[in-house]
């Protein structure tokens, strides 16, 4: 299962890079979206995909009984998803404004600030 997920993560990163290398800014944002999802999935996979009980400590005990799942990666992913959501919302508005102002969605036409 883990090696399968590793391939999935790899494919997602590849897809993200491919999309980001396209000229269109819409595809660029889609690439960024996939990239952040790939990073989230990576956290999920590398921290070990154990099938365990919820990490709850029974009353009176000092530690959980048996194998429990690690809750931390999920907390990290949740935080990262929320942040990525906010950032992407901004990015989508940005490309819309940029399209309105510049009049093209081709990154090759946006060379005003380069020299």
């Amino acid at each position, binding site marked *: 299962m883990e090696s399968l997920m590793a391939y999935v993560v790899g494919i997602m990163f590849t897809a993200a890079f491919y999309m980001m290398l396209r000229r269109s800014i819409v595809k660029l944002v889609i690439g960024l979206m996939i990239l952040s999802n790939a990073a989230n999935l990576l956290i999920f996979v590398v921290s070990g995909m154990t099938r365990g009980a919820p990490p709850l400590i029974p009353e009176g005990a000092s530690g959980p009984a048996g194998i429990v799942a690690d809750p931390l990666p999920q907390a990290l992913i949740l935080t990262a998803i929320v942040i990525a959501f906010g950032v992407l919302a901004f990015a989508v508005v940005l490309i819309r404004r940029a399209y309105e*102002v510049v009049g093209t969605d081709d990154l090759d036409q946006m060379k005003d600030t380069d020299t």
Partner: protein
Amino acid sequence: MSPELILPVLIPLTAGALSLSLWRSVRYQRILAVLANILLLWSGIWLLMSTTEHGFVTMQMGSWPAPFSIVFVADVLAAIMIVLTGIIGLAIAIYSLASTPRGHEKFGYYPLMHLLLAGVAGSFLTGDIFNLFVWFEVMLLASFALLTLGGERAQMEGAIKYVTLNLFSSAIFLSAVGLLYGMVGTLNMADIAQKVSQVEDPGMITVVAMMFMVSFGIKAAAFPLFFWLPASYHTPQVAVSALFAGLLTKVGVYALFRMFTLIFTQDVDYTHNILLWAATLTMLTGVLGAAAQFEFRRILSFHIVSQIGYMMLGLALYTPLAIIGGVFYIMHHIIVKTNLFLVSGFTYRLLGSYELKNLGGVYKYRPLLAVLFLIPALSLAGIPPLSGFFAKFVIIRAALEAEAYLVTFVALLVGLLTLYSMIKIWAEVFWKKIPDHVHNTEELKGKLNEKHAWAYYVPMVSLAICTLIIGLYGQPIYELAEMSAKQLMNPQLYIEAVLGGNQP
């Protein structure tokens, strides 16, 4: 309980929330901006005093013991950075009173500025690697909005590059955090530092180290990852440029200093050698880029890149003296670079352009402004007795002691080329006559039609005085850098301060 540790984050956050609730009254937002930054500076000085006294100040969120909770840690370096954040925040807040267009102020300029400062302060103080990511994002999101405020074409184009590369860097950072967590099972930086040596496969640690290097390298604008910076930093209005120029890239540099002295020291030959080459090429490409530019702020932007090289050089040489030099350089650079941007903004106010060919005659009509430019400019180039000379001197001496002669040569050459760029600006903007095609020169020649003209001068003069103090009265500053270098070179101190009695 040490409130000074959390205040540098709480003050800007509270101020940001308050200024949001004062949305309709720009007047109160302005007063609040200045007040909050005075408080921020005060809390920074308080923090610096207590770190120089106790060495480390730590705080555990929710009173959970260290490796389980998010910790805030301040050592001398972090406290220095907070003080600098306070100084720059205050300077920018005052400068904004005069320079920021009314429209920007109405659309949340001040709340965003507070949020940005909160993100910067949080990144300096946190001792938890995932928390560092979160503070980075707070800072980035505020900077995205500040960068695009106004919505002109150049801003949009610059912002797309800035946003893309910074998001890309965040994704690499996040992946690296995930991989590191998978190997060591902890997020606390001190805890990671003592557990990396026990990882079975040290090669993987180096891989993760390189991912962090790329991620922070993008944020710090190091070669070959700096292209977003000269494409975007000259596009927003000038107070924002100055704020970014002073603080944002230095957060990346600070993160590099933290990671590569505390955690990734197991393969110094490999990682720090790459840093050394990156630093050398950063210096060189930055300064050559600047030599080719003829726009005030673009020249300065490229010089940010080249100066980042010097700071990374201090880290890459990885000797006590070199780290001192690096820290000293950060202190000097933040103040000087912000001041140069402020000067460029004032010349823009006078003549309405940043293009060197449209500027001229400033020395004749505004000699004080010329002096205010000359102090940071010569300091940047490293002319004694200004701050830049000592910063460069320490780093170059460290490079000589490490027998890195090629790097020493490049560092000296870059100093010379920096001087060339500064002379170019001096000759074009201040020395030459006003070009014939420039007509709107009434404000340059006569009285400035501006209610808050003092708000332009106060920050420029104070930052210039700071530069002079660092240069002429450098001993205490050097001692601060020395203390922080001592702490950085002994990661064990940091680990003990954070984990205390919880060590295995």
